């Protein structure tokens, strides 16, 4: 698993480098790596040979700017080819800078305008119950900065009101948003208490620890949504990116690319 995760990070670095002068949202993708890896490889019922199967668990990446992490995972699953990864952010690519709905390759919904994925997830969760599908779950990944959006809380309130125990909200809490550290913009603290007060079952985990994430996702949450707050490090895995607001979206020079790859190469 560690090797797989390392490869995911390397693929993200390659995509960022391929994106050239426009750069990529590499920081918020790196923080997501273990979250996505654990969901896709250990938790979710998702068969890459049948990505639209009714029985699949649904994953909605509401923090769409982190999508290169998802592209890397989808490549690992065989839904995206190695060479296609290099088309990221080029003209006519399917791999936009923000996810564009394409269920055939496992991208359930489009996103990019923050604060909307959880509402979609609530709708999916209700629909699953309506259809009698009591097995599938919906995983919605939001950023902590994204939680500034009021619509996130509208969606949480409805998920609680409708007693949706088939939805899991995952917060990639990397403590940094576009402009700065969240504490300097709009602090969401105490985040755990906020989710609890709104009526969710909350599990706080180290978002880079496989076992903790796995345990967190398996938390019982009878008649209420589960919120897994994953404490992460923005830019995780690359020393000069870690915890640096400027690496929310940035450009990799050749030197920095080599440095990043060499750091990851040892893992």
């Amino acid at each position, binding site marked *: 698993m560690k090797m797989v995760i390392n490869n995911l990070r390397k693929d993200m670095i390659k995509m960022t480098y391929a994106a050239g002068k426009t750069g990529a949202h590499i920081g918020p993708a790196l923080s997501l790596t273990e979250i996505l890896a654990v969901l896709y490889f250990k938790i979710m019922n998702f068969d890459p040979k049948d990505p639209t199967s009714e029985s699949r668990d649904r994953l909605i990446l509401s923090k769409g700017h982190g999508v290169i992490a998802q592209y890397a995972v989808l490549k690992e699953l065989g839904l995206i080819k190695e060479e296609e990864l290099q088309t990221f952010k080029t003209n006519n690519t399917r791999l936009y800078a923000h996810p564009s*709905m394409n269920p055939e390759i496992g991208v*359930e*919904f*489009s*996103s*990019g*305008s923050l604060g*909307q994925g*959880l*509402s*979609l*997830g*609530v*709708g*999916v*969760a*209700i*629909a*699953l119950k*309506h*259809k009698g599908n009591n097995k599938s779950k919906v995983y919605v990944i939001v950023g902590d900065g994204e939680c500034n959006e009021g*619509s996130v809380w*509208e*969606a949480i*309130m*409805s998920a609680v*009101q*409708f007693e949706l125990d088939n939805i899991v909200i995952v917060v990639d809490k990397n403590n940094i948003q576009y402009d700065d550290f969240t504490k300097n913009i709009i602090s969401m603290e105490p985040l755990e208490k906020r989710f609890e007060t709104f009526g969710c079952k909350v599990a706080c985990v180290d978002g880079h620890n496989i076992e903790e994430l796995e345990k967190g996702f398996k938390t019982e949450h009878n008649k209420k949504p589960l919120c897994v707050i994953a404490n992460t490090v923005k830019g995780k895995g690359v020393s000069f990116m870690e915890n640096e607001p400027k690496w929310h979206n940035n450009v990799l020079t050749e030197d920095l690319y080599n440095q990043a790859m060499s750091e990851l190469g040892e893992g």
Partner: protein
Amino acid sequence: MEINTQNIRTLSFLGSCGTFGKIIEELATQNNNIIALTADLCSFAGLTRFAQNLPNQYYNVGIAEQNMVGIAAGMAKEGLIPFVTSYASFLTLRCADQINVNVGYMNLPIKLVGLTSGLSVGILGPTHICLNDVALMRAIPNLVIFSPADCIETAKCIEKASEINAPVYLRLTGTMGNPVVYKDDYNFEIGKAITLKDGSDIAIISTGTMVFNSLKAAKILEEKGFSVKVINMHTLKPLDVTAIKECCSCKLIVTVEEHSIYGGLGSAVAEVLSNIENSPKHLIIGTQDEYIHAGDYKYLLESYGLTPERISDRILEE
């Protein structure tokens, strides 16, 4: 539903919201994939009976319209047929981004029902008056936009909306006791305008409640010796371009709508005419670029030039 004199009278009495509630309940009873959503406006949307009789197909999300649109999009992706209701202004303007991303961009077949659009709730002020929804919805790709002329047509639009696999914006105008344009059953086709009256001097293209007023205005003009054609443009998108082109044999084309002169039916017709050489003069009748003074519906229609008399007077000025 069967269309007969009794039903026409009942729906007209109920008005656009009541008609919506009645028809959607009938459809949802036969198809349990039809879901009605409201943002704390159950009775206003005519959904009281629906909520009682079909509780498993009814969701009240509280005062949170943006969340409601997102939820509906999620439902639509999973194969349900959600009808989302609120005041037209809150539904379209407040949720513009949700509609753009979740409905337009992803082409998810949710049905947006904009209640009391236009001037009908004018006494509540400019927050509730809605005169720019068509402008906004028309610029979002993939949406079908209906603007029915009366309550029978509203029923037909709801039925069509439930059948097609496309996102729909249903613009409801008027109030209880809506005038009746259609006294008998007729054929309703998406994107196919209906010529209610033929004529050769003036062509009036109208939509929503203004269809009835345009028919009356045409009568006034005919008494003065003009031959007037009246078209009901019940689908604003896709637009019936052929019907507009056919109006070019008249000397004057007039569009009438309970909407701003910017971005609505008038603009849509002008976009077509601008591509036609030597097209006739086009008069756009609607509300001007201003916030409307609060007032009751009748008063506002009179004040802003949308009664049959004011419409015909304005046309005679040309």
